[in-house]
């Protein structure tokens, strides 16, 4: 594998891994606190990307404003999902399978609302209008302004999340829900309010991830769904209960899709078209060999259930 290709693939790993981490953290949070593997998460990502796109099309190119818009739309999408569907189903004490199916349904509804909007306003395959520029170059090491935005944003948001979880009353309440919702209710934690805040946080993170993903690729109603398997692979690698594990999982998935895939292509002729199979292989391998993922390997600060 040529050194230049290795360097580029590692840069891609960090950049895409950071994006996967932002998306996967919400899945881990939803699963830990709400006990729901939420497949509608992909659509919160897409909704955030469209919010970012629309803001950029209106002429506003400030990345912070764009990400704020994406956060708000993603958060509202998630909260509406909770209030309109998931909360009502929880009240009926339906099974986990019903909740998973309903998350697919919610996702489909949001997706096709976005399709209708995109069709009406012709918003397919557009890019969020922040120009891509090179901010650092040394030989084959090239870093873009997207890298400069994605990686620090991911790090800052992860640090803020960890602080929220460990140093605020809301974080403690979230962890209480993650451990035992009934006990949390008995000791007086306002469960529904905490859940609503959690959904806002989950959707907001997904929305920001969507805005950044929309800078990496083209905005389309299926863009979130296109990434969701890789994101779930990252969350499953992280054991679905640990922030630090999820982040590590995201980078492992991105490393596999980029550096490992290019290594296999360069040395063994494995076609790059097999790249989408990698997250499936990771998911199956984790479930067969180590269902708890990275949990217990990396513990403490980022763990929700402790």
């Amino acid at each position, binding site marked *: 594998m*040529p050194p*230049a*290709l290795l360097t*580029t*693939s590692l840069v*891609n790993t960090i*950049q*895409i891994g950071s994006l996967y981490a932002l998306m996967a953290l919400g899945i881990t949070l939803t699963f830990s606190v709400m006990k729901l593997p939420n497949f509608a998460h992909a659509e919160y990502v897409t909704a955030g990307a469209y919010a970012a796109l629309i803001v950029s099309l209106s002429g506003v190119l400030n990345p912070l404003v764009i990400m704020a818009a994406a956060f708000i739309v993603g958060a509202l999408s998630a909260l509406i999902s909770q209030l309109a569907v998931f909360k009502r189903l929880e009240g009926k004490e339906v099974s986990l399978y019903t909740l998973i199916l309903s998350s697919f349904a919610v996702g489909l509804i949001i997706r*096709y609302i976005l*399709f209708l909007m*995109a*069709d009406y306003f*012709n918003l*397919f*395959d*557009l*890019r969020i*209008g922040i*120009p*891509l*520029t*090179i901010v650092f170059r040394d030989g084959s090491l*090239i870093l*873009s302004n997207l890298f400069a935005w994605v990686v620090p944003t991911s790090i800052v948001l992860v640090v803020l999340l960890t602080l929220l979880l460990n140093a605020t009353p809301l974080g403690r309440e979230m962890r209480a829900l993650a451990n035992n919702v009934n006990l949390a209710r008995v000791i007086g934690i306002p469960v529904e309010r905490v859940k609503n805040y959690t959904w806002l946080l989950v959707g907001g993170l997904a929305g920001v991830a969507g805005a950044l993903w929309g800078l*990496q*690729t*083209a905005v*389309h109603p*299926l*863009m979130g769904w*296109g*990434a969701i398997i890789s994101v779930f692979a990252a969350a499953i690698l992280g054991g679905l209960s640990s922030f630090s594990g999820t982040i590590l999982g995201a980078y492992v998935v991105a490393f596999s*899709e*980029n550096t490992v*895939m*290019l290594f296999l*292509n*360069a040395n063994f002729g494995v*076609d*790059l*078209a*097999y*790249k*989408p199979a990698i997250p499936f292989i990771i998911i199956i391998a984790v479930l067969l060999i180590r269902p708890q993922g990275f949990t217990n390997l990396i513990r403490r600060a980022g763990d929700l259930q402790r």
Partner: protein
Amino acid sequence: MLCLIVCLTVMLGAAASAQDDMETYVLGVALPFTGSFGTFGQDFERGIDLAVAQMNAELEAAGSSIRFETASADTEQTPEGAARALQSIVQTTGAQVVVGPLTTSEVLGAKQFADENGVVIVAMASSGAAASIPGDNIFRVIYPPDTFSSKAFATIALERGHQNMVVLYVDDPFGNGMNEHFTKNYQARGGGEVASFGYAPQSTELSAEAAAVSAALAGFGDGAGFFCVCFPGAAEAFVQVAQIDPILTSVQWLGNEAMTSDEMLEDPGHAQTLANADFVTVSQSADVTPLTPLFNADFVAMFDKEPGIFTNYAFDAANIAMLTMLAAGNDGAAVKSMLPFISNHYIGTAVQAFLDENGDQNVARYGIRQVREDGSGFDVIGTYDGNSDSITYK
């Protein structure tokens, strides 16, 4: 009073009898209404609806008892979805002729059911060489197969002095066929090595692919060229990551027409990347016939919006299907037998249809378009006549 009742009875009976005499032919429409090609599918359906509305109006004016109606199903842009769509249309309506699907992989997905059940498929935009099969029930009446355009791309690559080529192609029947035929033609005409990289059709993020293409171009050194065979969406995603790659931005590019979308040039970075790459594409000639402006005006009048790219192909395909059904009846076998004759005598909004032994469009006139230096649009720099395998530059 009795007279009045008798008169009313006779009149109602006559009306009912006239109604009974009416015959309705169902024209199936199998297109991707969802997925990344959903916009194409929806717009194509509008083109077909326009053709059906116009045909019914003419039939009514002529006093004919035949009317057409459509039955649509979503192919979901997958081969399996196309097979399900065809099955659903045929089993619920008895349709013998289906217009669509869109891509070659969908057409091939629907092929087995069509062949086994005597249903005729009239596809408007599929061009993958893999679907060029003699004797089957698939007719691709407007867009010629890629065996022609691959020769044009190979010739242009050689004329530009590319000693070696790197190809990025969508890993489906369309992309595989284009890659295979391009490589064969390029090397047969004196070209050197071709390094090819496939990407999965569902991929939306292509940074690994861009890195691989860049490394292959670097390995070839000076004189190498790049050929991108991508679907919309992936094309934008590829250019997005390629625009900061020093190798990819220093070589000349060729690419299919998905690279020439309006969305591509709306992004200044993408437009500049294509301009720096002297990007050239080959696509079916946008020649107009006297019917083209009429189609555009009628479409706007009916739907209050401009027709999308290739929507007139769907309009033409529907007309060929309906004219054949009027001549041969609502019977798949008869339509299969008659359709080449009708096609070969049809001039629509795009080009003369004339089918080869595979039931594919055999009139292959392409426009060669190059992006302007400022990336503001594309200029036609020449034409390629697939039938004589010759390029004429302006």
